[in-house]
């Protein structure tokens, strides 16, 4: 299914490394439900290196929500914190790790001119 969720994880997988996460190590699992089915995306970060899979393994942080909600968050239509407060998104485990990873959500999709890629100015070479 080609949607914002697939795009997002595929992009992360393709990049393989996200400098902004270079101080981050940990795993986050997204359990995304779509009707009766649940698809899991397993994100493993090791000092910025990213591996994406569909493993249903234990993770330090687990996010559970509807796939439509995940798409909405990635497209900037839905605010993750407000969704969590409403109870339509459940975040368990290491919330700090989740907040860090969640900052990737919008950056890649922000088309505003001048916005630094992924929301962060990069080290000038």
């Amino acid at each position, binding site marked *: 299914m080609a949607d914002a969720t697939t795009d997002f994880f595929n992009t992360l997988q393709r990049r393989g490394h996200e*400098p*902004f996460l270079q*101080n981050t190590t940990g795993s986050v699992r997204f359990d995304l439900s779509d009707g009766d089915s649940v698809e899991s995306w397993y994100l493993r970060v090791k000092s910025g290196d990213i591996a994406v899979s569909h493993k249903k393994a234990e993770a330090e942080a687990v996010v559970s929500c509807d796939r439509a909600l995940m798409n909405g968050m990635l497209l*900037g239509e839905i*605010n993750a*914190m*407000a969704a*969590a*407060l*409403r*109870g*339509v*998104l*459940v*975040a*368990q*485990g*290491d*919330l*700090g790790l*989740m*907040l*860090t990873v969640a*900052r990737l*959500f*919008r*950056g890649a*999709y*922000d088309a*505003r001119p*001048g*916005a*630094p890629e*992924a*929301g*962060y*100015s*990069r*080290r*000038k070479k």
Partner: protein
Amino acid sequence: MSSDLVQILEGNTFVVSDTRGDIEASLTDPTGLFSFDTRFLSRWLLTVNGQRLNPLSVDDLNYFETRFFLVPGTGTVYVDSKLSVIRQRAVGDGFREQLTLLNHDDKPVKLAIAIEADSDFADLFEVKDALKKTGAYHSRIDDGRLVLGYKRETYERETLVSSSAPAKIHPKGLEFKVTIPAKGEWSTVLDVVAVNGTWMESDQHTHDRRGARAHLSMARGLDKWIEKAPRLECEKDSLKVTYRRSLIDLAALRFSTRSLPGRSLPAAGLPWFMTMFGRDSIFTSLQALPFTPELAETTLLALGERQGTHSDDFRDEDPGRILHEMRYGEMTAFEERPHSPYYGSADATPLYIVLLDEYERWTGNRRLVRQLEYEARAALNWINEYADLMGNGYVSYQRRNEKTGLENQCWKDSWDSISYHDGRIPGFPRATCELQGYAYDAKVRGARLAREVWKDGSFANTLEKEAADLKRRFNRDYWVQDGEYFALALDTEGKQVDTLTSNLGHLLWSGIVDKSKARAVVRHLMGPRLFSGWGIRTLAEGEGRYNPIGYHVGTVWPFDNSFAAWGLRRYGYKEEAARVAAGILDAAEFFNGRLPEAFGGYAREITLYPVQYPTACSPQAWSTGTPLLLLRTMLGLEPVGDHLIVDPALPAGIGHLELLDIPGRWGRIDAYGRGRVSAGAHRVRTTTR
């Protein structure tokens, strides 16, 4: 808050009750049990044989614990009761109340004891603005507990009430039928737990840590907190009282976030602002750095985790912007308020860099500076890319959320705080002067971090060039030639908003003021139009909107003065800094060591005591931090490399002063000083050793 209300708190949970320990809230009334910005109990009434109780005394045991001594019956002058009632209440993730009844009679007594409980689950914003709820309430008895609940779509909050002694539980409360023997007693422990919906799910275990054990660890935690801070020895007893009060209040104001377990940062104020605020948390962390540096570290981490990533008009969010305020209630959940978080602050982002640098200078913790490199770069990027709304090279603000966003995004955030000399109010965007100072300081400090820690010399050079350029333009464009001071702001046409304000103090602190202009600026700050004898007024006497009891237009703000004192020291005016410290610390004495948010701008010769401005929040974090920063400025503490420079200039009334075990990259260091600076309003004698 009215003084006959009793409040206790822990983290972002607090209870406000009357002096009987009862809660009888209406939608607009501020009593209740609150947690994460939601009221979980709006009714909590104790009766004995159908009678309300009468308070004999209230003991505030701790900021998180209180004890009410009560007797049955009301309205009589004499109390002659054979029965005493004690309610001892401690806050955790709700509260635990030990209810004890003592029978003083020599025969047994039969009693019907009842607790009425109910909740309106109001959002704090609803309590403030008297708004109506749209969801549905429910109540049930489940597993021996009373469950009060509220549901709106998927949003669900519950209050669980249980008792250790057997009780008859019904949907509106608990009842006990007991017989207490002659000279005997009866007791039960009532547990009230606030359940904050599924987003808090992994925190359920914390409910187990409540009760006696948790209570002990909280008391020990407070002792440890005070022990860990530097010790103050001083001939002036009132300063010791103020210092201790500040440490205890700072402990009470600690706020924990689930994302950083075991750590805490300063919330803005108790009880209505027990949440993360960019500006308040940063200013307070700066004030407390020489005393409790771990607050600064948590502030930097917590604000960094929530740094803006994209443009969102509803939240006034931009990439790199540091948040203004975080809230957790129903209105935030349904996006009727933008606080998830809200980003409408023009100063928190540059101040974030200032704190990061100052933190490193004190602690030497470069690991954190490396860890937050992206956040810091994004914040510096925000200043150039997103904060220059008028394209004139200055930081300015204008809200994009016109319904629920903030109009004034600087610390003087009331509607009339920014005005011209003749009282007119400028349009938006507004480029207030202190924002330029903070931006300048952020660039200078950012350059140091880039060069020394991130090893990026070219970025450092760029920042330094930008800083120098900003300073040059600022000293030209903001300088009011006739008056010899800096204008409060530039308006949309680039014209000066020409009022004389306390913002000058922040400009000195930032370092943006040309050396050649400093003397004139100091003359204004210490002159009779701004300096009241107690402190520097927010707005000078003689300005159109001056009002000695106007919120930001004439009152004296202790926190504002503490940064002015720091600024005066920065430019070498240590006697003037000591006089500001003396005025504010003298005022603190009148408030038993707890400085209010603001007090009246009346001249000291006229009122003889500082007139408190009536505000809802006390203690306020940056007022609590004020005596700490003043101790720093009086002792002239300044980290230089791996050393701490001590260069005291103390007011004469203070006598001998020692601050022992100041933590930092040097380990622990003691500082000593003796008061020699006359605090007289217009005479200045020479200094210290």
